[in-house]
C-alpha cells in the first residue's frame, strides 16, 4: 500500500537524516574549530560499530550498555587523537592532512586484516516491527532516529548552555570575541574531538545493527557528512541539521525512482549548482 510504503520511506529518511547529521556535526565541529579535514571520521564511525559489536555479540554485554561503552571508548580515543595527532601540527595544513590520511589508511587496513571478510552486524537494539493502521514500520529505524534526534538536541543544548559549549560555538563561528576572551583553544578542541568521536561511534553502532559491518563502511558516511557540510555552508552548525534533513530525504526517496548511483550523480549536480550560486552554502554566511 502506498501509505505504508510512504511511511516506511519517511521513517527511513528521518533515520538517515539523523545519522548523517551526527556524522556531519562532528566533522563540521572539527573543521571549524581545528581547521582539520578529519578523514579519520570514517574510521571512527566504523570503530564505533565494531567496538559495539565486540562488546555486545562477543562479550555478551547488553546492547544498550555496549552502545554507551562504545561511545565512551571511542570518545576517549578522540582525546588521544586531538592531543597527539592534531595538536602538534595545529595550523599546518599539509601535516594535519597527512596525519588524518595516515589514520584512515592505518586503521581501515588494520581492521581489515584483523576482521576481514566475515560478515557481521551489531545485534539489534530494538528488533521487531511496529504495526498500526495497516502500516508496518521497522522499530529499529525509528529508535535510531529518536536516539539521533535526542543526541542532536543534547548537543545543541550543550553548546548553548554550558560554558565550554559556548566557547566551542564561538570559535566555530570564527568570532573575534572568542580570541579576545582568552579561551583555551586546546581544551575546547579536546572536548570537541571527544564529542565528535562519540557521536560518530553512536552512529556507527546504530547503523551497524541495521546494515552489516565492514571495514570500509565509514567511507560512504564520510562522503555524506561532507555533502551535508557543503550544503550547509561555512560556519553554520545549525544549517547542518537542515541540510541533513534534506539529504536524508533525498537519499530515501530517490532510490525508489532512480538507481542507487544516479542519486550520487544528482548529488554532484546539486552541489555544483549550490556552489555556483551560493558558495557559502544554503545556510552559511558570506565567507
Amino acid at each position, binding site marked *: 500500500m502506498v501509505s505504508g510504503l510512504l511511511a516506511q520511506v519517511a521513517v527511513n529518511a528521518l533515520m538517515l537524516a539523523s545519522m548523517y547529521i551526527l556524522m556531519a556535526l562532528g566533522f563540521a565541529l572539527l*573543521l571549524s574549530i581545528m*581547521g582539520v*579535514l578529519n*578523514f579519520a571520521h570514517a574510521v571512527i564511525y566504523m570503530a564505533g560499530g565494531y567496538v559495539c559489536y565486540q562488546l555486545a555479540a562477543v562479550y555478551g554485554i547488553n546492547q544498550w550498555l555496549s552502545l554507551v561503552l562504545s561511545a565512551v571508548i571511542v570518545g576517549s580515543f578522540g582525546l588521544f587523537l586531538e592531543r597527539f595527532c592534531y595538536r*602538534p*601540527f595545529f595550523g*599546518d*595544513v*599539509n*601535516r594535519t*592532512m*597527512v*596525519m588524518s*590520511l*595516515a*589514520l*584512515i*589508511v*592505518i586503521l*581501515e*587496513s*588494520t581492521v*581489515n*586484516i584483523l576482521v576481514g571478510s566475515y560478515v557481521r552486524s551489531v545485534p539489534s537494539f530494538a528488533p521487531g516491527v511496529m504495526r498500526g493502521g495497516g502500516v508496518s514500520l521497522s522499530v529499529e529505524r525509528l529508535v535510531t532516529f529518536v536516539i539521533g534526534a535526542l543526541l542532536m538536541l543534547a548537543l545543541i543544548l550543550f553548546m548553548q548552555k554550558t560554558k565550554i559549549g559556548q566557547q566551542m560555538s564561538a570559535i566555530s563561528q570564527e568570532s573575534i570575541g572568542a580570541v579576545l576572551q582568552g579561551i583555551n583553544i586546546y581544551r575546547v578542541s579536546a572536548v570537541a574531538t571527544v564529542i565528535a568521536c562519540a557521536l560518530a561511534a553512536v552512529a556507527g553502532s546504530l547503523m551497524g545493527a541495521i546494515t552489516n559491518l565492514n571495514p570500509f563502511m565509514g*567511507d560512504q558516511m564520510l*562522503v555524506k557528512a*561532507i*555533502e551535508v*557540510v*557543503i550544503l550547509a555552508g*561555512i560556519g553554520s552548525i545549525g544549517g547542518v541539521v537542515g541540510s541533513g534533513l534534506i539529504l536524508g530525504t533525498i537519499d530515501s526517496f530517490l532510490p525508489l525512482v532512480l*538507481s542507487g*548511483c*544516479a542519486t*550520487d*550523480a544528482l*548529488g*554532484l549536480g546539486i*552541489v*555544483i*549548482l549550490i*556552489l*555556483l550560486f551560493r*558558495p557559502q552554502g544554503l545556510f552559511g554566511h558570506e*565567507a
Partner: protein
Amino acid sequence: MATRHKYDSGAFLVKVKGKPFKSAAVPVLVILLFLLPLFVKQPYYIHVFIITLLYIIVVSSLRTIALSGQVSVGHAAFMGIGAYFSGVISKELGWMPWLTIPLGGLAAMFAAVLIGYPFTRVRAIYFSMVSLFGGIAIVNIIRVAQKWTGAIGLTGIPPLSPIDIPGVISITFLGEKVSYYYFTLLLTLVCLSALYRIERCRIGMTWKSIAQSHLVASSVGINEVGSRVLSFATGCFFAGIAGASYAHYNLVLTAPTFGFLPSIFLVMYMLVGGRDRFGGPIIGTAILVMVPEFFRSLKEFTPLILGAIMVVVVFLMPQGIAGLFDQIKARHGQDRRRKVPTHAA
C-alpha cells in the same frame, strides 16, 4: 626556508623558489631507467615500474594543482575520466589509442573546467572537501554508466597499436611489457618536462602568487578564480593522459581503481614526498608504491607499512622526504643570509 636565492636573470626561466635541480643525479637516473630492462627481466617488476611511472605523472599533476593552493582529494577520478573516455572511444569507434589517449586528457581537462569553476570559488581546505566529494561523485557516475551496459568493468580495451615503419622500426605492444615500459618512460619524461616548464615560467609563478596571498595577487591584476581553474584543468589534463595510458596498458578498467581510497593515496604520495619541490611527488610515489611491492609477501600489511612511513614522515620531516635536504641544510646553519641593513637605502 631561510636561504638566499640568486635570481638568475640571464636564463629565460623565471626562477621561483630555489635553484633548478642542477644535480647530475637526474640524467644518470634517466639513463639507468632506460637501461632497466637489461637488468630486470621479470615481467612483474617491469609492471611495477610502469605503474609507478604512471602514478608519478598523476601525482606530479596533483602537485601542479596544489601550486595554486588547492589540494584536490578527488584526483584519481580525473585519471578515471581519461581512462574510460579513451577506452570507450577506442573500443567502440575503433580509433587508435595514439589518438584517443590525448583525447582522454582533453576529456579530463574539459570535466575539470566544467566542475572547476564552481569548485575553485571556495578556498583552501574547503576546496579539498569539495574535491573529495566531486571525485567520488564522478566515479559513481562512471559506475552508473557501466551498469547501463551491464558490465562490471570496461573490458576489451585495445592495446597500443603497433608502430610499423617498414625497414625502420617495428614495435608491437600487445603482450610486450618492455615496449609498454619504454612508452611509459618516454611519456613520463615528456609530461614531467611539460609540468616543470609550466611551473618555472610565469604561469607557475602566477599560481604560486595566488597561493601565497590571494589578496595581493588580485590587487596586481591576477584573476584569481580564472588562474585557479587553469591550474586545476592543467593538472587534470595530465591525470587524464596518464589514466588513458593506463587503460591501454591494463586493457581492463574497474571503477574502484579511481575512487575514494586511490584519491587519498595520491594526496598521501604527494605530501609524504614533499609538496614544495618538484621532485617531491616523484620521490613520494616511487617510495610508497615500490616499497610495498618489495614486501609483497606481506600483502595485507602494505597499508600498515605505508601508514607507518607516513607517521614517521609527518613527525620528522615537515617538508616531506624531498624537503629533507632543505631541512638538513637549515639545521646545519648553512643559510648564508646576510644581515639586512637597518636602512632601506
